[in-house]
């Protein structure tokens, strides 16, 4: 699979030497990614045992997954969605409803929520990709607002109250999730699997074509790629993974509420990705932990959180567009030269 990914590069790169170099860099990059991922996974596995509050970790991991899903679209497809909260929130509601009202076990509840987000992704994506750039952002935002009003009014979401005290249940019938630590490792497993899936997608031929479309859409079309279909697939995939984050989050916190469908949530995920580094693999994870940590820290300061969030946005856009991971990467590359 990986070899065919570089084959696509070879086809489009006229100079064969450059392709050879690219293959060497790619394998070095793969090794670096493997080391970093193992370190990250190990750190997360130990974290609750060295005094980090597991509930905080679970929240941050859910948002990290959400931000990674979002980054798949903006960082590798060049599509800025300003309505990703609709997938997070819808999946949360569906999985909470499935677990509480239908009495579904957690794995089925999460699957149901994820499927709902995927379905919504098909509909919203098919419409949104009809326009580009700024219009795409506005359409996704408007779509999300429509979903917000639907969730506000639909009877099964219980309006302002949300769906409360959702049972966590037993995973596959034998893992009791009411234990915080068991729940934590399940969330970690879900996160790591989705994270690896995203890495795989980015480095697949599909991901390479997506990148080509981002860089120069008319050229990709002239090479025979059906740009619309690739963009739609990326959108659906991103929506599905955002839904997975939302569904998991609803089971973890035993709550699905309007906060998760509100447009501020859509803005928050943009910020996490921007702060961590758009188009980097680890950026969204770093960004999500930074923002959730900040919100945790500032929880007692009311509206100052909004002000500081906005200020970080402004600073990132003006001076820090590569984000934390992007800047670190650039610094590292500069030092090696």
């Amino acid at each position, binding site marked *: 699979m990986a070899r065919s990914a570089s084959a696509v590069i070879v086809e489009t790169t006229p100079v064969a030497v450059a392709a050879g170099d690219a293959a060497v860099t790619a394998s070095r990059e793969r090794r670096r990614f493997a080391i970093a991922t193992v370190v990250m996974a190990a750190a997360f596995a130990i974290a609750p045992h060295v005094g980090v509050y597991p509930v905080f970790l679970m929240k941050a991991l859910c948002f990290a997954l959400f931000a990674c899903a979002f980054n798949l679209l903006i960082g590798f497809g060049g599509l800025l969605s300003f309505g990703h909260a609709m997938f997070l929130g819808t999946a949360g509601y569906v999985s909470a409803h499935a677990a509480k009202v239908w009495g579904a076990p957690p794995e089925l509840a999460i699957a149901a929520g994820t499927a709902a987000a995927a379905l919504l992704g098909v509909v919203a994506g098919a419409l949104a990709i009809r326009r580009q750039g700024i219009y795409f952002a*506005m359409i996704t935002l408007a779509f999300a607002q429509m979903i917000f009003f*639907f969730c506000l009014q639909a009877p099964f979401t219980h309006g302002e109250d949300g769906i409360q005290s959702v049972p966590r249940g037993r995973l596959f019938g034998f893992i009791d999730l009411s234990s915080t630590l068991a729940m934590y490792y399940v969330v970690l497993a879900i996160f790591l699997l989705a994270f690896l899936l995203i890495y795989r997608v980015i480095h697949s031929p599909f991901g390479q074509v997506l990148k080509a479309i981002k860089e120069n859409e008319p050229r990709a079309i002239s090479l025979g790629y059906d740009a619309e279909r690739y963009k739609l697939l990326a959108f659906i995939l991103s929506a599905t993974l955002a839904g997975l984050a939302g569904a998991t989050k609803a089971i973890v916190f035993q709550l699905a509420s309007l906060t998760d469908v509100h*447009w501020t949530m859509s803005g928050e995920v*943009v910020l996490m990705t921007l702060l961590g580094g758009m188009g980097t693999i680890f950026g969204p994870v770093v960004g999500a932990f930074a923002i959730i940590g900040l919100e945790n820290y500032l929880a007692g300061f009311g509206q100052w959180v*909004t002000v500081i969030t906005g200020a*970080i946005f*402004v600073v990132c*856009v003006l001076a820090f567009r590569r984000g934390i991971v992007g800047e670190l990467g650039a610094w590292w590359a500069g030092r090696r030269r």
Partner: protein
Amino acid sequence: MTELFGVPTQALFGQLLIGLINGAFYAMLSLGLAVIFGLLNIINFTHGAQYMMGAFCSYFLLQYAGVGYWWSLLLAPIVVGATGIVIERTMLARLYKLDHLYGLLLTFGLALVIQGLFTNYYGSSGLPYRIPEELTGGINLGFMFLPKYRAWVIVASIVICGATWYVIERTKLGSYLRAATENRALVQAFGINVPRMITLTYGFGVGLAAFAGVMAAPIYQVNPQMGANMIIVVFAVVVIGGMGSILGAIVTGFGLGVIEGLTKVFYPEASNTVIFLIMVIVLLIKPAGLFGKER
């Protein structure tokens, strides 16, 4: 009581009026967005916050300086427009060479900062603003009661929108503006100071939002969140109308306001979502928007 389409005429015309009022605000705000977008290629997410600042500015003027409604109708747009010019000069101007999405992100962040600050100091409950004395009371039209202030809002916004249209489409200044929208470099080559024009255009668009805010203050109360929900609807209005024409923005704004009002009469559950549904339908049939051109 008389009925029309099975609905009491009182309710029907009442909602029609509310629809027209909302439409007036949609039109003024989407007009400002369209003017800014035309020249700067930036979607001004701060627009809602600037509309709110206009309302607050008139509140401050009355509260601390004793300046009444009519003067603040003139002063608030100038003051808020000036803050817009500062934002453009210090921040937006650095982003023109980059992807347009950065402009959206920056203005989104600014909107959060402004709204957060105002909510911090003034809470999220509304502050009352009295209707100016000349416009209290109303006229009985026989089939309905028309409050004078609401009639004024509709007339004033039509005049303002019409004047903006006239300046852009029929004057020399407007022709510079349209030319710069088409080809900035060429206009600059003719010796016209395009960067200054861009700055002033942004200031003007922001001023228009503030003007709408002052007009909204007596109707919706002065509230830090008043622009936040408005701006998303206005975005949908802009998508429906397309950014191509000034007239399109005005017509779409009023039209959608009326449709929203009528939905409240016939099917209230959908009144919040009807504009978004129309957006979906328009996207399916004419992706560039009703008055837009594909670019």
